[in-house]
């Protein structure tokens, strides 16, 4: 009779009570609450998900003037800033109604040679100014290879209104490689340390003609 025993045990009693025991009301309420809590938690976690634009955001390392800021892939130091009313290149002199901000920086990299991308000046109000393209790239720091353990120095030139200077900072980054937008690119943001007073002083002390090609 043992051969038929499992089959007999598997058959439910017709008309009898259902096979599984129904849990009590408290346990069921608890299960429902736990389920709701889990769903709410899952939905809450969705709000933390990075949007595509945020995924593409760089990782910004901040620092102040004269300080070596290590962005892991490259290290950058902002040496000095100056203002100018005109820039003298090798062939011609360019003038502006606004003001030329000359940013002198030094950089080295960690593992590979890079060229620095065109830096961006971010005002206190969040406006962004790219370094001017009126100055040839060959006289900026972007032209120089930034290589491991070798400090190189150079300048970048911005053409901005004088009102953009107070509270402004400059962001340095590496150019995009290939067609793929790399997430978590390193970026160095250096506060120029200009308040209203010092910005006014800087503009007032602007050189008439600043030579971009140093002899």
């Amino acid at each position, binding site marked *: *009779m043992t051969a*038929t*025993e499992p089959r*007999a*045990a598997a058959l*439910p*009693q*017709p*008309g009898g*009570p259902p*096979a*599984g*025991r129904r849990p009590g009301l408290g346990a069921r309420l608890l299960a429902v609450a736990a389920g709701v809590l889990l769903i709410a938690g899952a939905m809450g976690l969705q709000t933390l998900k990075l949007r595509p634009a945020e995924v593409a955001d760089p990782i910004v390392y901040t620092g102040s003037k004269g300080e070596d800021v290590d962005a892991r892939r490259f290290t950058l130091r902002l040496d000095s800033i100056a203002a100018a009313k005109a820039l003298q290149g090798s062939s011609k002199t360019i003038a502006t109604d606004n003001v030329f901000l000359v940013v002198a920086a030094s950089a080295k990299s*960690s*593992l*590979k*040679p890079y060229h620095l991308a065109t830096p961006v000046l971010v005002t206190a109000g969040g406006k962004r100014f790219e370094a001017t393209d009126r100055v040839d790239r060959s006289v900026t720091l972007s032209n120089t*290879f930034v*290589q*491991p*353990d*070798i400090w*190189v*120095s150079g300048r970048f030139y911005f053409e901005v209104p004088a009102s953009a200077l107070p509270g402004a900072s400059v962001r340095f980054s590496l150019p995009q490689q*290939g*067609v*793929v937008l790399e997430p978590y690119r390193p970026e160095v943001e250096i506060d120029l340390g200009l308040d209203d007073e010092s910005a006014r002083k800087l503009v007032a002390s602007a050189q008439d003609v600043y030579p971009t090609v140093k002899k």
Partner: protein
Amino acid sequence: MSTNERDWFSPEQRQPQQPPQQPPQQPQQPPPQGWTPAPEGYTGQHARPGPGAPPRRHARPQPYDTRQPRPQMRGPYPDQQVWPPAGNRQQPGSSTQPIPAVPGAPAARPWPPQGLPPRPASAGQATGQAPAGAKKPRRLLVAVAAVAVSLLTVAVSLYDHHDFYQQQITRGLNHIETVVPAGQPGKVYNTEWRVAVAPMKPPEGNKHGPEVTWLKIDIARRVVDPASATMIGDPGDMKLRDRAGREWTVPFEVVGDRPLERMEVGKDYRIQGMAIVPTAVAQEVELSFEPSDYRSDTPTEDLFDREKMEALGLDVYVLRFRRR
């Protein structure tokens, strides 16, 4: 008109009707499933009128008191079970299909089957350890399956990212590096490459101090097989690498004769480079580059032929020259 039938077209009578005839006793049957006696005080206000009753808007049927026996509205015949036969009711295992009994067939098997050990009281209550033991592996199985599915999801996602990286960043190139012993030529595509790396005097007016060493790089290439005489492309990705894997770029130029169509077999063509490295690693950095697989006799239209370009393969040969 019988006395227990109401005249719907005459005004309602105030006094209770004569108690209707008692329905005949149900023949030994429980009430049909789903029907329960109305509780005390239930008036049946919302009960639907029985079949045959006129629509409500003409006259509302008088609510009946369920404490009284159910009034017989219509249909003098009470429900009567005709199938299955009342006698089979006691055999739960028997079929309710209206199949006529086969005369002479053996009687239906009794339920529960005779001769079997008694069933457990309920499925949930364990007869010993068997069901409890069955429940534990099941939980374990679910847990293992959950972990496996999670891992699989992550793995598929990672594979997808890696695939994307391979195609977009490295473009599926397969780098084959050959390490060349010091002083010997490296050979790729039937071309021999000899290199010499030596410190040089820093040029005048440079911005670097003694922490930087200037290196002069001389490269000579010699075709040893006429079949490769048209491989005149400049090497690519020329760099100096130290043991830690850091890289310094090597700008170079072709000096002397520049091959335009074909190179002479056995003749040295020279390439000169100049690099700066930190003095600390000047003695250990090694030159590496990728000889080009370009052939000057490639028809221009072939360069735009996807199949022919893919037929060249994705292998990229890299030569790395030891210093000592």
